[in-house]
């Protein structure tokens, strides 16, 4: 190989190195500037409202009273509800697809799951309004809007995320582990429960984290079914609101820079922080469990 050729190869390598670095920097800058902008605008809220009142107040009546607790509670509650309902169901679906279903059923289910992801959220909300709302309303005697319905709709929305990521995780467990379990006289269920699930735990956690991120950030479908009443939910079936729904309903009608508008920005910042801390919390818990195994 002659020297000129080598030099051009090295230059080429260098060029790509810079392209990658620049891309990474751009991505970092974008994320950082979003956080910066949202927090800078949001933190101006506290020129007019006390920090303490904002976080612990339960009465939202702007301009005047800015108690944002009902929205934080609403966001966290619908997310946890969605995970509690959709997580186990999605995991069961993933186990079915990865380990129980005959190949031809998997061939149908796999693309169907992917298709599921592409359904716009307004469609989910619409289904919630026309199918689930009357049922809930019938059994509770109320209007039917509230945390429960939002949780159910979100649970359905996160199913494809949970299923496809968990399925990948389960299928990536080496076949030899499974064979090892069978060779000790384990049944299929024992093998799934005691070997496959523990071995794919990091992947399953990723599935839950992404599902949570989707659930907490979802706006349209939730706004359609939660009732949009800015008060602390008194029950699972009472109309309430979340951080996202309150932002979308008011951001158009509040002038930029006004305390009310700033408060919405601060709520967006809280949304970021809440989802970030949920993710960190889960990672922390799982890493500790994994560390104990070492």
């Amino acid at each position: 190989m002659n020297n000129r050729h080598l030099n051009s190869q090295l230059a080429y390598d260098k060029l790509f190195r810079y392209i990658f670095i620049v891309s990474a920097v751009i991505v970092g800058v974008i994320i950082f500037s979003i956080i910066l902008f949202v927090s800078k605008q949001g933190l101006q809220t506290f020129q007019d409202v006390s920090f303490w009142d904002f976080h612990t107040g339960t009465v939202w009546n702007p301009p005047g009273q800015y108690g944002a607790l009902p929205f934080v509670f609403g966001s966290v509650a619908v997310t946890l509800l969605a995970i509690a309902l959709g997580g186990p169901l999605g995991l069961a679906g993933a186990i079915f697809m990865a380990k129980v279903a005959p190949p031809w059923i998997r061939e149908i289910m796999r693309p169907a799951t992917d298709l599921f992801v592409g359904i716009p959220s307004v469609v989910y909300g619409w289904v919630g309004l026309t199918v689930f709302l009357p049922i809930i309303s019938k059994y509770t005697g109320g209007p039917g809007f509230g945390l429960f319905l939002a949780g159910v709709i979100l649970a359905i929305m996160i199913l494809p995320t949970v299923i496809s990521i968990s399925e990948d995780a389960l299928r990536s467990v080496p076949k030899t582990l499974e064979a090892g379990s069978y060779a000790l006289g384990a049944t299929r269920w024992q093998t799934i429960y005691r070997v496959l699930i523990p071995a794919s735990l990091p992947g399953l956690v990723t599935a839950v984290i992404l599902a949570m991120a989707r659930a907490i950030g979802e706006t349209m479908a939730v706004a359609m079914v939660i009732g949009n009443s800015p008060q602390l939910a008194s029950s699972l079936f009472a109309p309430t609101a979340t951080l996202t729904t309150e932002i979308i309903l008011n951001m158009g009608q509040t002038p930029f820079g006004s305390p009310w508008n700033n408060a919405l920005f601060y709520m967006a910042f809280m949304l970021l922080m809440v989802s970030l801390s949920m993710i960190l919390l889960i990672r922390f818990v799982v890493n500790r469990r994994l560390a104990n195994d070492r």
Partner: protein
Amino acid sequence: MENKFVVHDLNLYYKDVQALRNISMDIKKQQITALIGPSGCGKTTFLRVLNRMNDLIEGVRIDGKVLLDDQDIFGPDVDVVYLRKRVGMVFQRPNPFPMSVYDNVAYGPRIHGQRNKNKLDEIVEKSLRSAALWDEVSNRLFKSALGLSGGQQQRLCIARLLAVEPEVVLMDEPTSALDPLSTLKIEELLRDLKNHYTIVIVTHNMQQAARVSDSTAFFLNGDMVEFGPTETLFTRPTDQRTEDYITGRFG
């Protein structure tokens, strides 16, 4: 000596391909039987017949008879889960579960219903001692098995198997992924184990078969060419193909 397995006219097809042809052999109790032959000759497939691991592979069809203590393992009333408890298997590559050393060994007893903590402790220690691993791991029982060396992992897999008290131990090239020292340890272990267990071992390594086994079967292209006492097979083979193989003319 008593027969543990009696195999009669076994044929195995994988989809349209016949992988084993008219295999008949008796596997003696508390002996080591080695299966040798070149890659793809059917020796591993045959081993996996004995505890019905081939059931997990789609498209496998079997005819013929395999008797374990005079009972047909393909009979309608056979519980395959119970069969695998009696006939356990060690694999080519060590496959410890991603959990602690203790939990690996306790896995079998636990799935078979043993809940008593003291009893489990006892089984774990006894199994690890039988697998000549206790001294190396007794101070790290509750740490991940994945931190052990390859040779230790393979002995752990043997301990894990011994903990369910099988009658037969099937080994599929158990030392092919290990260094010579670890191999030596496993071979020593095999000689101890045969006092209590019937062992069938697939090996690529003819010296290993000669060193550890009592009987040896030579497989070639799905046929069992020759089967007899190890010493006879290696010193006075009756079939030309066996002689060609053991003298290294092919394979």
